[in-house]
Every structure is written in structure tokens, then in C-alpha cells.
């Protein structure tokens, strides 16, 4: 499989060079470089351009460092699949219902005597599962919840894997803030189209209250969605083609995920979901 991909790799690297843009930055505002918590000892920090959302043409304001333990993690497709499956299933309640032999109408009396009738088999009720119209044995019983909790670190690994994949596939963009000049949806559509940001975009802000212009502009467009940092999840990141984070959102995500990776105790986190274990 690798031999199939490696020649493609070489040919694609030349192909991708055509799309590199070098834009001069404004020398007016000084943007502070990012300081990483828990500085990495071996892996190099990943770098990403800090872009702007004010104009349709992108301006690269500065280079930001990203922690490799969050943005350059082993891309675990199976862990991502488990996260997506968990997100879809844990809230799901199945309302399918079948009647058991005691619930089916009728079938209280013995249909015919036990012995004597040599043509018929012995039966106790006409609603037994053997009969047509009888009860279902192990059928669905409503309501059946499918709640389960994925282990804490599996969920964290899902988030970090998805962020790493988004960054490596050039689908992650960091923006200084979500302020746009007009509340016209045309502006945002043109911006996304010109920057090749993919049909669907997920904008992530650190607070749940977003600037007015962008909320009005993206209100009616269903494939541009705004989300606060606490709503970041694997399903949404995969559903949307491009992920746009604000600089402060990146700080919040990194600090939260790094705190969880360096916690003193993890047994308290999953305690309430454990039933018979200690």
C-alpha cells in the first residue's frame, strides 16, 4: 500500500507548490508570538499563519506556534470513528416496540385439548411465538437508550487527532478575530470561495457571543456555522470541510487539552458513569 502512495506523494508535492501565496504583512500592529505551555522536548512545534477576516483577500499577519502534542498527534482514524459513533449513539433512544406474547391481544385460552386430536400439535395459546400473529420473542422494546460513555482519554485523543488531521490537510485556519466589515452574506461567500476554504466552514470563537456582522451574514447560510470553543467536537469538525479558529480560541483549546493531558487524577472524571466498579 505504501509503494502505491509514495510516488503519488512525490508528484503531489510539486503540484502543491503552485498554490503557495506570499503576502506582505502590515508593519503597523505588532502581534505577539505564542508561548507554548509544556514546551516540547523533541517534536518541533507546528506553525500556522495568522490570517485576517476583514478583507476578501487574505493577509498573513504573523506565524503562530502550535503545540505538537495537540496539533501533531498520531492520526488515529479508529479513535475518530469511535468518537463519531459515540456522539451519534449516546443520545439515541430507540422507540421501536414489538409486543410480547402476553401483550398481544387474545391468546388466554388453550386453543384445543392437549391430547386426542392426532392432526394438531400441542399448544397453550394462539399468541405464542410459533403462531402467525403471535408475540415476538427478543424484539425491540421501547424506549431503549443506547447511552454509553467513551473513556475520557479516548475522547481527548479523538479531539487531538482530528485537529492534527485538519492542520495536516490544510483545513485549519487561524484568524485574529471574527470581525467582518459588512453583514452581507455575499462578503463571506466571496471570501470563502476566493481563499479555497471548502464549501462548509466552521468558525470557532472563544465566547458564545459572536460579533453582530458575522452572525447576521452566516445566519441564513446553512453551511457556515458559528460555534463557541466549548462546543468543539469531532463530528462537527469532520462534517465541516474547513475549520477556522480565532487566536484566543486556539489558546483556550490548547490550555484545556494540555491541562487534561497533565491532570493529577483521572478517576474522578469517569466516576459517575461507573456502575458497579470502584
Amino acid at each position, binding site marked *: 500500500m505504501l509503494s502505491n*502512495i509514495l510516488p*503519488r506523494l512525490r508528484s*503531489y508535492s510539486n503540484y502543491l507548490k503552485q498554490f503557495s501565496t506570499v503576502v506582505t504583512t502590515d508593519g503597523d500592529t505588532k502581534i505577539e508570538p505564542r508561548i507554548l505551555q509544556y514546551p516540547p522536548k523533541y517534536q518541533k512545534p507546528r506553525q500556522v499563519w495568522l490570517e485576517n477576516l476583514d478583507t476578501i483577500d487574505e493577509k498573513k499577519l504573523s506565524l503562530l506556534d502550535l503545540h505538537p502534542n495537540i496539533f501533531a498527534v498520531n*492520526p488515529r482514524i*479508529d479513535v475518530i*470513528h469511535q468518537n*463519531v459513533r459515540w456522539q451519534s449513539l449516546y443520545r439515541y433512544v430507540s422507540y421501536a416496540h414489538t409486543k410480547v406474547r402476553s401483550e398481544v391481544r387474545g391468546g388466554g385460552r388453550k386453543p384445543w385439548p392437549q391430547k386426542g386430536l392426532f392432526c394438531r400439535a400441542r399448544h397453550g395459546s394462539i399468541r405464542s411465538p410459533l403462531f402467525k400473529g403471535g408475540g415476538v420473542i427478543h424484539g425491540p422494546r421501547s424506549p431503549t437508550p443506547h447511552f454509553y460513555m467513551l473513556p475520557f482519554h479516548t475522547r481527548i485523543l479523538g479531539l487531538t487527532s482530528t485537529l492534527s*488531521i485538519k492542520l495536516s490537510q*490544510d483545513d485549519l485556519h487561524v484568524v485574529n478575530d471574527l470581525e467582518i466589515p459588512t453583514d452581507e452574506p455575499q462578503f463571506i461567500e466571496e471570501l470563502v470561495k476566493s481563499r479555497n476554504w471548502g464549501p462548509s466552514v466552521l468558525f470557532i470563537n472563544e465566547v458564545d457571543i459572536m460579533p453582530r456582522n458575522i452572525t447576521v451574514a452566516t445566519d441564513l447560510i446553512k453551511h457556515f456555522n458559528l460555534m463557541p470553543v466549548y462546543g468543539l467536537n469531532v463530528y462537527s469538525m*469532520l462534517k465541516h470541510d474547513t475549520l477556522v479558529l480565532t487566536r484566543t480560541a486556539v489558546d483556550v483549546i490548547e490550555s484545556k487539552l494540555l491541562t487534561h493531558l497533565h491532570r493529577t487524577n483521572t478517576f474522578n472524571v469517569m466516576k459517575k458513569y461507573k456502575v458497579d466498579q470502584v
Partner: protein
Amino acid sequence: MGSKTVDKALTMLRTLPRVSLKNIRDNPGSKMTQKRGRGQHGGDYHGAGNKGSGQRQNYMRLGYETGNRPFYLRFGFEPYYERHHLRRQYPPVSLLQLQTMVDTDRIDISKPIDLTTICNTGLYRIFPDQHQFGINLTDEGADTFQAKVNIEVQWASELVVAAVERAGGVITTAYYDMHSLQCMINPTKFFERGIPIPRRMIPPTDAAEYYADPSKRGYLADPEKVSEERLVLSQKYGYNLPVIEKDPDYEMLTERKDPRQIFFGLNPGWVVNLKDKVILKPLDEELLQYYNS
């Protein structure tokens, strides 16, 4: 997780299609499907065996040995379980583990150490509802123990006491009843309950002897006799007893809790409000009398 392989994998992804909800799956072989005895090949006996209680879904009760006296009924008297529900357990922490915690700065030795400090590191857990009454400091690593600590445990052998005192520290054994332990092991959870800090109970009769013994450094023992025993132990094990009085950390090393106190500096009867960062103290005479007794 290797950075070379991680870089390889992430670079490979740059040429592969975008990872989306449609092209993700579990690792092959990770999910085992349930095999039911149905269909052409699972049929015949349908996974229920031939005849007997198995096929007829009329199973024998657990432990039944087809007629002969079963194992669980053979022995009418098991004296080794007598009073097992009253026996106290002290899960161990070795001196080596304690030294490692000190070296990695999980524990601050500039303050007294007790059960709460060790549980707060997250490296040690206690379950009071399972008859576990505290820390048993074991002697693994007694030769290389060098930390000068003021430590309060629930059980310590003579060698452990000698090792701690040789390093210039102070060790005390103290008793905590189950309710006090519940407060100690998870202080945040206890403060959030909003109930006043309880009084620590005195040890039961079979433990009172241990905790009043100066050679065991019990918290109910006479301090003068304890200092006598310190000298005796130093002579027995052959080390120079460090003079605590001249130590700059003398105040910290002699900081002790009242026999009715659970936390340092917080008296029983107080209610701690974590949200508003306020402590509520009772002024009622009856309550003050009760909590100060």
C-alpha cells in the same frame, strides 16, 4: 506515536482525500460479532447442546454438583472469617514511594504531610467504606530515605519510625474514624456539601493502646515519653539523633493537630464556603461547647 512515523502519517494524509464522516472506520479485527446458533451452519442444536437441563433451558442452580453435597455446603464452620468485617485495613505506602514523591515535587515538605496531602497527589487512594483506615508506611526504601518531613500516618513499624527520625523528621501515628476519613480523602467534595467539619472520634478500645503508645509515636501519647523513645530508638538502630530544637524548621516539625481536629488550622464546627471564599463559624454556646470538647 513516533515523531518520524507521525510525520510520515500526517504527510501521507496531505495527498489522501479529506478525512470525513464517510471514510472513517474501526481497525479491522477489533470488533467481534456475536455468533448465534442460527441458520444453516449454526442450526441443529442452536448452541444449546443435547438433551438435559441445558437444551431444555431448565438450568441447574449455581453450585449444584448433581446430587453430592456441594462445596459451598460442605463446610459449616469457617472461623477465619470471624469479625473480618471489623478488622481495620491500612493500604501501604513505602518510604521509597514517599521519597519519589518528594523528589518529583508532588509533595511540599515545607509543610506537614498527612493523609489529605498524599491523597491530593492522586497517586494513592483510600476507600473508607471498605474498612480502610489510612496509610501504613512500610520500610521499603528505609536505607535511602533522606527527606526531613513532619508526617502523620495511621500505622508505622519501628524501622520506619527510625528511618524518618534519622533524616531529621517527625512521625506521628493518628487515628481517623470513617466519617473523618471521608472528609479528608476528598476535601473539595466535602466542602461542597456545606456541612460543618465534624469532630474526629477517639480510637476504639482495641486501637487505643496503639495510639497511646509513645514507642509507636501515637498522637495520644505523652510528648515527653515520645522524646525519650526517640533517644532509645536512635541508640537501638545506631544513628545520631538530630536535635530538632535547633532546626530552623522547628515550628513546622512540631505542628500537630488537636485530637478532635481533621484539617490543620480548621476547627470542627466550621463551614467552608468555597464559592464565596468564606468560613462560617458558629457562635452558639452549646455548639461551641460541643465542638471544643
